[in-house]
């Protein structure tokens, strides 16, 4: 593929974040807002890095192994948190992410605090574009599928969902497995581009970015978070000409969207936005 010069890393990181966000969107669809996105990305990175660097695995099987590891760990985390909701669930995923970072930090084989380096450069622009398209396709198909319906039902009203014969356990485990598999595959692609995986990039500070993408874009339609992930990844780079003001401008953009479109960038139905808000209907404002 042609060289994009200055734009190439920006495009690649935007699309990597889009893949992560697609995975997080699927996980969140059944009401589990995971705070461990960066941790899963890191796990995918470590798995693929170790397999290619130390065991001479080819690129594709290594990505598949990373995705499999994500599905297994995601499924376990979902099974562990099956009776938790809301705040406790989010805190548990946060703790899981931090624990994974600490574990990676303490394994000398993975390079400890310095991270795992010497990873072969495999990921090309073409790979990233194909992977992003694949992630969008999977998320889009899932969103409109019957499993997507079941997920929304579980998120909106678990009591009604179980009274309507939906298995909360199955739905939540499947969404967490699929979402985490996509995130881990994305992490593997990132590892073979950045050429370094470190425990520090698995922390909550990085996971928070994806939650911002999700809320900024809006949880009602898939395209919102995906658009937000690309826009917000590119924004600090595009604003680079404003030098030290760029982070202020970045913050300002987020604040403006939150003020003007509180349900996110894109919403499902005109005029019925807040009523369809998956985070629950807002209480009426006492001042209005």
């Amino acid at each position, binding site marked *: 593929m042609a060289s994009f010069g200055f734009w190439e890393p920006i495009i690649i990181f935007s699309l990597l974040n889009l893949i992560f966000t697609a995975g997080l969107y699927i996980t969140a669809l059944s009401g589990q807002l995971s705070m461990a996105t960066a941790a899963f990305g890191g796990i995918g990175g470590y798995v693929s890095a170790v397999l290619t660097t130390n065991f001479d695995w080819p690129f594709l099987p290594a990505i598949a192994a990373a995705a499999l590891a994500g599905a297994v760990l995601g499924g376990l985390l979902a099974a562990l948190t099956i009776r938790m909701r809301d705040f406790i669930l989010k805190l548990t995923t946060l703790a899981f992410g931090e624990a994974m970072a600490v574990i990676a930090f303490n394994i000398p084989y993975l390079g400890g605090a310095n991270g795992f380096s010497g990873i072969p450069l495999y990921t090309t622009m073409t790979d990233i574009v194909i992977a992003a398209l694949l992630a969008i396709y999977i998320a889009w198909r899932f969103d409109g*599928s019957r499993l997507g319906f079941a997920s929304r039902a579980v998120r909106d009203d678990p009591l009604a969902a179980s*009274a309507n014969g939906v298995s909360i356990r199955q739905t939540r485990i499947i969404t967490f497995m699929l979402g985490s598999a996509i995130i881990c595959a994305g992490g593997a692609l990132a590892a073979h581009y950045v050429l370094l995986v470190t425990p520090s990039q698995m922390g909550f500070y990085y996971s928070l970015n994806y939650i911002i993408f999700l809320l900024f874009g809006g949880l009602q339609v898939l395209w919102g978070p995906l658009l937000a992930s690309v826009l917000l990844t590119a924004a600090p780079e595009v604003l680079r000409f404003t030098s030290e003001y760029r982070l202020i401008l970045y913050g300002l953009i987020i604040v403006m969207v939150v003020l003007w479109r509180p349900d996110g960038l894109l919403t499902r139905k005109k005029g019925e936005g807040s009523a369809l808000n998956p985070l629950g209907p807002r209480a009426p404002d006492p001042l209005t």
Partner: protein
Amino acid sequence: MVLAVRGLCKRFGGIDAVADVSFEVAAGEMLALIGPNGAGKTTCFNMLDGQLKPDSGRILLGSVDTTGMTPRRIWRAGVGRTFQITETYASMTVRENVQMVLLSHRRRLMSFRHRAADLYAAEAMELLERVGMADQAERGCGVLAYGDLKRVELAMALASRPRLLLMDEPTAGMAPGERAALMQLVADIVRERNAAALFTEHDMDVVFAYATRIVVLDRGRLIASGPPKAVRDNPHVQQVYLGAP
């Protein structure tokens, strides 16, 4: 016989919430379960739909013994339920809410294939037509008026083709005109489908207008049952619940 309850008991600590209650519901019947607060109506309901396991006694749905089954299995066995506070999926449209239940009932939910919004759309519209919500099919459930939500919930309960509808205070929170319309709708549907409805209700006008038979509970015990007129004239019922005429 659609439902037969035999010697149902449930104790919470030292209190008999439901003690030795037996009754039956026949096809085409609208049976009202009434009684003062704390009489055991909701406990009784929660045992019938599987949220609580009875300590003793049996629940027969037709020829199937559903005693102690999970809510999902009882729902599959043919019990539809509406809740005192409506339970619908706020982020989905009215039509999608009904489609969700149709898909779940046919065990077609756990799949990645096909666009869910295209499946059983016509059938969902038929049900919405029946409850008078077809014109609002594409609206989000989160923006509906309360009375309309009750209709959607009824359509969702009907989507599983239940033999027995369990309705916990179906008209709570509705305006008097809406109450009559909803109960008339339920009565018509029960007759059409030769199903049965069992409901609790605090509005005695609704009970005496639409119930074909009434069961009265007091402190967990069944104190009277029979046609509305007999129950209304029963001195014991008047004393504990209805008050003197």
